[in-house]
C-alpha cells in the first residue's frame, strides 16, 4: 500500500499540468455551454499521454491519474474513454476521440461530433462504429460536453466486439476518475468564491452552514478519487462498479450545494461552475445511474456462488 506517486507518475502529471496551463482560456473568450478545447486535444494526441495504459511499466492506474488531472481543468477534451476504454478493447493507437453509448447506437453520445470512433454497448456485444464527422448531428444540451447523434449506421464501417464486460468495467472506472477530477475542479472554484464573497459582514465561507456542506463535499471528492484510483489499479469489476456508484450517488447533492453557495452567479456561464457540474450531471446518468452501479457492485462483491 502506497498512496504516493512514483517519479514517473509525478513527471507525467507535471507535464500534463504544463499542457493544461498552456491551453487555458484567456478570459476574453465568450462563455459557452461546452467549449471543446482543440488546442489541448491536439497536445494530448501528440504527447501520447492518452496511450499511457499501453506503455510498458504503466497501466490503467496511470491512465486514471491522467484522466482525473485533466478533468480538474476547465478545458473540455475527450480523454477518459481514450485513455481507459480504448486500450482495453484493442482500439488502434490514435483512433480517437472515443464516444460511448448504451443500448442504441443512434442515441446522443458525448463527444460524438468530434469522435473518430463510437463504441455502443448493445447488451450482448459491443458495436464499434467508425465515425464520419459529417454524419453526426450535433445535439444542443445544457451538459458541458459536445453531444451528437447518428441518424443511421448505413454506410458506416462497423464491427462487433465480444467483450462487453471489459467495456463496462473500464467505462465505470473512466467515469469515476473523470467525476473525481470534475468534483475537485468545481470544489476549488467554489471554495475560492466563498472566501471572497462577503455577506452580513463576513465571507460566505465563514458561515458554519456553508462550511459543513463544503466539508462534506470535500469528503466526497477525496473518497471518489481514491475509489477511482483503486478501481483502475485493480481493474476489477467490483471496484469499478463501486467507484462509479459512489460518484454517481454523490453527484446530485454535490452539484446542488456548489451551485447553492455560488448564488445567482453560479447560474451564469461567466462563472464557469457549469463546466464541471454539467459534466458531472451528464456522468450521473450513464450506465443506468447510481442505482444500477450499486447493484452491480453488490453482485460483483457477493456473487451467487459465494452464497
Amino acid at each position, binding site marked *: 500500500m502506497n498512496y504516493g506517486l512514483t517519479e514517473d507518475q509525478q513527471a507525467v502529471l507535471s507535464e500534463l499540468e504544463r499542457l493544461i496551463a498552456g491551453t487555458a482560456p484567456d478570459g476574453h473568450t465568450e462563455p459557452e455551454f461546452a467549449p471543446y478545447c482543440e488546442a489541448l486535444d491536439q497536445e494530448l494526441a501528440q504527447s501520447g499521454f492518452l496511450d499511457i495504459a499501453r506503455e510498458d511499466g504503466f497501466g490503467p492506474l496511470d491512465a486514471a491519474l491522467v484522466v482525473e488531472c485533466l478533468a480538474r481543468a476547465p478545458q473540455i477534451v475527450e480523454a477518459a474513454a481514450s485513455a481507459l476504454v480504448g486500450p482495453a478493447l484493442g482500439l488502434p493507437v490514435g483512433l480517437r476521440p472515443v464516444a460511448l453509448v448504451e443500448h442504441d447506437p443512434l442515441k446522443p453520445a458525448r463527444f460524438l461530433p468530434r469522435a473518430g470512433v463510437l463504441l455502443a454497448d448493445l447488451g450482448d456485444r459491443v458495436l464499434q462504429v467508425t465515425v464520419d464527422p459529417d454524419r453526426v448531428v450535433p445535439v444542443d444540451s445544457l451538459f458541458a460536453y459536445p453531444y451528437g447523434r447518428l441518424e443511421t449506421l448505413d454506410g458506416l464501417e462497423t464491427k462487433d466486439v465480444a467483450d462487453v464486460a471489459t467495456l463496462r468495467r473500464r467505462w465505470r472506472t473512466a467515469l469515476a476518475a473523470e467525476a473525481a477530477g470534475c468534483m475537485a475542479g468545481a470544489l476549488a472554484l467554489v*471554495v475560492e468564491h466563498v472566501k471572497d464573497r462577503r455577506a452580513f459582514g463576513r465571507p460566505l465561507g465563514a458561515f458554519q452552514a456553508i462550511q459543513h456542506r463544503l466539508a462534506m463535499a470535500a469528503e466526497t471528492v477525496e473518497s471518489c478519487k481514491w475509489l477511482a484510483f483503486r478501481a483502475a489499479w485493480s481493474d476489477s469489476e467490483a471496484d469499478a462498479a463501486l467507484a462509479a456508484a459512489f460518484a454517481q450517488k454523490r453527484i446530485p447533492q454535490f452539484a446542488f450545494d456548489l451551485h447553492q453557495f455560488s448564488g445567482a452567479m453560479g447560474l451564469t456561464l461567466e462563472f464557469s461552475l457549469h463546466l464541471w457540474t454539467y459534466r458531472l450531471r451528464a456522468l450521473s446518468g450513464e450506465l443506468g445511474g447510481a442505482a444500477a452501479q450499486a447493484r452491480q457492485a453488490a453482485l460483483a462483491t457477493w456473487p451467487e456462488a459465494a452464497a
Partner: protein
Amino acid sequence: MEFGWTAVEQMHRERIRELLDDLLPPDWEQMSLHGPGSDEQTAFSKDFCAELASRNLLVPNWPRAHGGEDAEVWQQFILGEEMWAVGEPRGPQYMNINWVGPALMKYGTPEQLEKYLPPIREGQAVWCQGFSEPSAGSDLAALRTQAVPVDGGYRVSGSKIWTSYAGHADTCFLLARVPASHGGAQDKSGIVILLADMKSEGIQVKSIPALIGEGDIHEVFFDEVFVPEADRLGEEGQAWEIIMYALQHERVGVARYEFSRRILDRAVGKLKESGRWDDPSVQEKAGQALMLCEAARMLVYRIVDGKARDLPPDAYANVARWAIVLADNGVNDFLTENLPEGLLGEDPVQQAHHQRAIAAGVASGAAEIQLNLIARRWLELPSERTRT
C-alpha cells in the same frame, strides 16, 4: 502508487486471523452483545490481551526500548483492522495501545513509564478517559473540574461524564483545570493532565444506563481527590499539546469501517439464505452501504500511508472520521431496514454493531467538530469569527 499488500503483510494478516480463530471462544458473539465496557468483555480482554502479549502482538507498534517491536506502521494497522473486524476483543485496552502508551512514552517521567507501561504491555491495564464533563463535551477547553495545587500534589473536585470503561478502570487519564485563584490560566493553558488512581478516596463511579450497552458510559465524581504531583503528565501548561498528540493517535488507530464491512458481508449471507437477496432494491442498498465502507477504508488508508511514509499530519484524519461515521450509519441503516430480526434477539453481533454505529458521530467528539476542522484545515475557509 500501489493499493496491494506485500507478501509479508498478507502473512501477518493470515497469522492474526488464525490466532483469532484459536483465541476467540465459541460464545464470543454472544459475549459481544454486552459491549466492550461490560464485566464479561473487560475480564475477557485481560486474558485475550495477555495471549497477544505473549506472542508480541499486543504492542508491536511500540519502540523496542519500551517493550514493543518497532513494527512497521502497516503491520500494526492490519492488526487493528483484524481486531475490529471481529468486534474488537481487546475491549477497553485498544486505547492503551493506540494512544495512552504513546502519550506516556513521549511526555512521561521515567517513574511513570516504569509504573504504567508494564501493565499495559502485559494486557492487564484498564484506563478510562476523564475528558468530557456535563458542560464540556466536544468543547473540551470549557472543562471545569478543578485541580487545586496542594502540598505534594493536587486536590481534584468536579465530575466527568460519558466516561467509557470507568467501572473497571485502574487509572483515569484525567483533565482538570488549575483554578484562577491558584494561578491557573482560564484558557487551555490552565489545564493539567493527572493520571488518577481510580481507587483513590473520593472517587465515585456511577454507571449510566444507555442504548449503547452496559458499562460503557459513566459519570465519575471527584470529591477532594488527592493526586500526587508525581502522577501529573507533563508540565502545567503543556496539557493541550499532550491532548492533541494523544487524539492524533486515537483517531487514526481505529478501523471501525472493517467491523461494518464484515457485518455487511454477513448480512448479505443471511439475506441470501432467506431468499431476500434477489430483490434488486436490496442489492442496490447493500451496494450503497458497501461503497460507504470502502470509501472510509480508502481515506483511513491514506492517513496510515502518510504515517508510514513519515509525512506531516494533515486534516485527512478529520475527513476520514466523517467517512467512518457515514459508513457505520449506512451499514446500520441497511441492517435495521433489511434484517430487523437482528435487533430482536436473533443476532448479538448485529446489535453490538448497531450500538457502536449510533455512537459513531458522537464518541471522541461530535462529528460536526470534524466538519469544522475539515473546513478550517483542509479547505482553509475563514474562521466563523471573521468579520470584515
